[in-house]
């Protein structure tokens, strides 16, 4: 999420790992359920819904975070799951309605897979982000 958290907030969470963990345990079920219902979230822990037209890119069988692959069918469906609309066709369409539509052009770094399944919200608050990513 491209929200910058004030340094004191980040510092607070980093100084209190136990409290952060407890908060995550409380928040996680609500975050998971909410984002799953609303956006088909796959809980990668590094949410970029905001930049992908509020469409979860992790629904892509290739987990592409930077746009559609070259295998999108003529009807806009996925090459791997023919009955599913390509998540990036959907993302591109939806992003046109958003005031921040230019965000889809941002080059997204690789995922830190160790953050998968964790709370993206807590990760943002605690300043946890991807490592060893291009």
């Amino acid at each position: 999420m491209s929200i910058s958290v004030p340094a004191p907030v980040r510092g607070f969470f980093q100084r209190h790992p136990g409290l952060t963990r407890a908060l995550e345990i409380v928040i996680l079920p609500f975050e998971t359920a909410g984002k799953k219902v609303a956006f088909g979230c796959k809980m990668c822990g590094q949410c970029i819904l905001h930049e992908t037209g509020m469409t979860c890119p992790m629904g892509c069988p290739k987990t592409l975070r930077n746009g559609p692959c070259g295998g999108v069918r003529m009807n806009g469906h996925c090459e791997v799951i023919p009955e599913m609309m390509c998540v990036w066709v959907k993302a591109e369409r939806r992003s046109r309605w958003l005031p921040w539509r230019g965000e889809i052009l941002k080059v997204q770094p690789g995922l830190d897979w160790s953050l998968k399944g964790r709370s993206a919200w807590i990760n943002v608050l605690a300043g946890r982000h991807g490592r060893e990513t291009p």
Partner: protein
Amino acid sequence: MTRPPQPFIVRLDAAFRSGLPVVTCEIAAGDGADSDDVIRRARLVRDHVDAVNVPDNTAGVVHMAAWAASILLAREGVDPIMHVTCRDRNRLALQSDLLGAAALGVRNVLCLTGDHMVHGDHPGAKPVFDLDSLQLLGLADVLRHGRYLSGREIKPAPDLFPGATENPFAPPYDFRPLRLQKKVEAGARFIQTQITFNVQRFAAFMVRVRDLGLDRRVPILAGVAPLRSARAARYMRERVPGMEVPDDVVRRMEQAGSERARREEEGIRICVEIIEQLRDIGGLAGFHLMPIHWEEAVSEIASRARLTPARASLAAIPAIVREDPADTLHNRPREHRA
């Protein structure tokens, strides 16, 4: 095996820098532990091209490793373009493969996401996709500048020349030029497109590409391929996702009948016509041939379409060849025409 007389002295990046039309060609990767097969295919095309692409388990079907086949070509004196896909390797394997290939003389790397394995011969395999093609381009750029992703220093840094692909023929059409722009920003230094059969669609794509000024930032090669039969045309249209084969192309191949000489002649003729039409589109730096197991057709297409590799003209001008190969200026703006 006897060593062929003339190794490529002009490397792909120098060919692009010259501004002359560039020709590249993809050969089928080896389908057995046989170096002769790879070399035989390369010899069929080597005189007509600036570099030869070596695919990486195309369509998710297992073949000889692209790095191995690329090294065979490099030893033959042919400049290889090694395809690297994210399907089968995580970021550790990608980095070590790129480093090893560069150490053995393979500089040109085409950074791809990779066809999904569901269409291949091992559909039950675990998909990796640790990175995507853009992140792989970024990785190649980081390596090129002397660092691993971990930040650790590489001495000496691999002298990579990373390229990328784009498919103008798959939805969302409006987004394709923008995705190409993202790839250029991520570090792509040359582009090869998907096979063109629908020239109108390609022209519309190039209009946007020129508006964005991308043709002046990176050389773009238009993908072309000869069809061998109506069956192949129908297969591509119906079974290969992301490939657009218009009805009139399929009809022409059907009308050519089933006699081998006639249908192959028609396939080559269509390919040459498409090249001629593409020449009228501005912003192209040359052509990328994908003969799909039919490397024999390349010399015929090259002679009929008057395709000559840039290196053929450059060999006579040593000054251009010797121009500083350590072109550190990222995506230096330059003019190209096909």
